[in-house]
């Protein structure tokens, strides 16, 4: 293939030389061809979780393609999006390693149809313009092929190449990770440097156009570099303002858990922001409630709780309030735990919230971080102070009080995760949270990711799924992120691969639709239409 250069690409856009292609298709380009590794690995493997591949390379290709087909179905338009695909060994040790790398290869600004002075992922621009002006590869993805192959790479673990979302313990769902990484390349990322706040090429991203800081009351795109740096660690206060995500958040997110004072009367009912510690059990409405007692270790700075508590009789059975500073968080909590505390509040000693970190496998009581201001309020009202966690009637878990979903902005900057992900407060877990969780089932649900794409300008397919020319009547996607129709389209390809005759194809599609019906995902009438389409399309 004669590779076009960036200049040729640009000329095509300028002159409108390239015609529209077929339907939007996220195309994979196998960069492992001929290597005998990665996507070409001939090692025999038994089919798993609906993945009919019989070699390791085939299973990787099928799962990779499944992810590409899902995004192809969700996004609407008539252009290809070209993705470099590779599964080769990446740096790894028995206990740690790089799993994947991904990103858009080009950005574009000030094109017709886009917002002025705004930098887009090249794929979004192609979707907006519905023009294949970029004939180069649009997205780069690669995954670690040593996992599960090299015994010295993340020893004991392996990718799960099944397509059914039934990830066994200890495995990493390959389909989920591919969906996640391709999504970064399609549009789920800002180009702003999270360490310096610098804009890429001096132009803010479309992502920054919808990211908003509740404290500064500014869009990320409108901030100075210093303001952006501050915003990227403004935990809980960096939110997405796009209307589609906000409108659909209520369909997906659970009601929020709210921390509030229940006594004394002066502050009862007031709510306060918290941040969970990095050790110990999670705080819940059941394990984090009751009276709060200020810790006293008998030292000159008694509320630091760096020594054994001398007011153990008051602490026992209650929540200890401790100030940050002078010794590790886990030592403070151990001292409170030893005194019989049921939980710990650690007040920051600087502005903002600070998640208490550290290693504490012996810690069995929950810990929450609170702000310096909240700590001061609590100490001023310590006589009879009591708190609780409760389920909010109005606020969503993973959204601010106005319903705008939170972006990941931990107070300790997490490079690569900060900013370009949904917040880990999300409940249920989301595909685009920074950490892969076994509970995510991207084969059926992309939660708010598609809505975020739509906020950025991506056209979405709001129609029904077709098998060949047959309309199944099943919506490609629904508000809230269900992508059942898209799944049918992706499964159609898998069934064609697995079947050696038309009858087997029909059986494959029908059995898949049966599982969707039996799982309550599609009604009986839809099942019948899918079955009829399979017969028609065999």
């Amino acid at each position, binding site marked *: 293939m004669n*590779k076009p250069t960036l*200049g040729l690409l*640009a000329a095509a*856009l*300028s002159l409108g030389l390239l015609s529209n292609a077929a339907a*939007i*298709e996220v*195309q994979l*380009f*196998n960069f492992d*061809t*001929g290597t005998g590794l990665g*996507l070409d690995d001939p090692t025999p493997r038994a089919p798993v979780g609906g993945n009919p591949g019989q070699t390791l390379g085939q299973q990787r*290709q*099928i799962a*990779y*393609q499944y992810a590409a087909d899902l995004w*192809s179905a969700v996004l609407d338009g008539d252009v290809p999006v070209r993705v*470099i695909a*590779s599964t080769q060994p990446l*740096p*790894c040790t028995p206990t*740690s390693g*790089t*799993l*994947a790398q991904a*990103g*858009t*290869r*080009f*950005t*574009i600004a000030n094109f*017709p149809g886009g917002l002025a002075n705004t930098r887009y992922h090249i794929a979004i621009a192609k979707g907006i313009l519905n023009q294949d002006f970029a004939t*180069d*590869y649009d997205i780069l993805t690669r995954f670690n092929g040593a996992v599960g192959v090299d015994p010295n790479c*993340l020893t004991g673990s392996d990718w799960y190449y099944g397509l059914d979302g039934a990830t066994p313990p200890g*495995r990493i769902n390959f389909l989920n990770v591919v969906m*996640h*990484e391709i999504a970064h390349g399609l549009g789920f990322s800002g180009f702003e*440097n*999270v*360490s310096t706040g610098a804009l*890429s*090429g001096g132009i803010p991203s479309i992502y920054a156009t919808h990211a908003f800081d509740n404290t500064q009351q500014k869009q990320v795109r409108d901030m100075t570099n210093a303001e952006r740096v501050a915003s990227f660690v403004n935990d809980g206060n960096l939110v997405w303002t796009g209307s589609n995500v906000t409108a659909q958040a209520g369909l997906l997110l659970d009601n929020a858990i709210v921390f509030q004072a229940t006594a004394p009367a002066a502050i009862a009912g007031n709510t306060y922001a918290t941040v969970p510690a*990095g050790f110990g059990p*999670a705080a819940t409405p059941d394990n984090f409630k009751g009276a709060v007692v200020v810790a006293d270790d008998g030292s000159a700075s008694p509320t630091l709780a760096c020594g054994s508590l001398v007011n153990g009789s008051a602490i026992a059975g209650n929540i200890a309030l401790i100030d940050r500073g002078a010794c590790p968080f886990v030592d403070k909590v151990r001292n409170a735990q030893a005194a019989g505390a049921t939980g710990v509040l650690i007040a920051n000693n600087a502005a903002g919230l600070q*998640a208490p*970190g550290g290693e504490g496998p012996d810690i069995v009581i929950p810990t929450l971080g609170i702000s310096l201001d909240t700590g001061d309020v609590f100490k001023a009202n310590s006589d009879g102070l009591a708190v609780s966690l409760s389920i909010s009637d109005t606020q969503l878990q993973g959204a601010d009080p106005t319903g705008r979903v939170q972006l990941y902005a931990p107070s*300790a900057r997490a*490079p*690569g995760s900060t900013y*370009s992900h949904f917040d880990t407060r999300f409940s249920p877990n989301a595909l685009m949270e*920074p*950490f*892969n969780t*076994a509970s995510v089932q991207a084969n059926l649900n992309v939660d708010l990711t598609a809505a975020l794409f739509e906020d950025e300008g991506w056209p979405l397919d709001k129609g029904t799924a077709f098998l*060949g020319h047959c309309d199944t009547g099943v919506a490609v996607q629904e508000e809230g992120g269900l992508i059942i129709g898209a799944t049918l*389209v992706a499964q159609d*390809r898998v069934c064609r*691969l697995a079947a050696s005759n038309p009858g087997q194809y029909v059986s494959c599609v029908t059995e898949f639709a049966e599982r969707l019906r039996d799982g309550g995902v599609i009604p009986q009438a839809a099942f019948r239409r899918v079955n009829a389409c399979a017969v028609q399309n065999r």
Partner: protein
Amino acid sequence: MKALFCPLVTLALCAAMPAIADDGKRSTNPTESASALTGMRAGIDRNTGRFRELTPAEQQELDARGNGRGELMALLKRGGVTQPETAAEAEAERIILPNGAEIMPLPLELMVSLEAHVDADGNVVTGHNDASIDRTTSKELPHE
């Protein structure tokens, strides 16, 4: 509404790999940028959602194995593809079209990496790593 009609004669992906070509535009030495490619590798236990950073020994061992940039450059070279490594290199390749549109490659340092490690309980935990951040500016959760 659409259906995909990719030819499925074999299990190969929809398109073949492009011919191997090296335009020789850029000389890259992966070791030169290694320090800029190493960021925080904190992860979260997928069951509890809790952070767990790598131990210093784990960090050192992973660092010693490089950042994967060499393998990536080899991969791209095999496919006849080039990609700038740094923001400065990317800006040097910026193109302004007559209609005012501007196209610029994204530097590799701004691409996202997903890291994983095995925790003390044997769970595989994952988290992202931003190659653009120097270790000295990457902060783990404070311990005190």
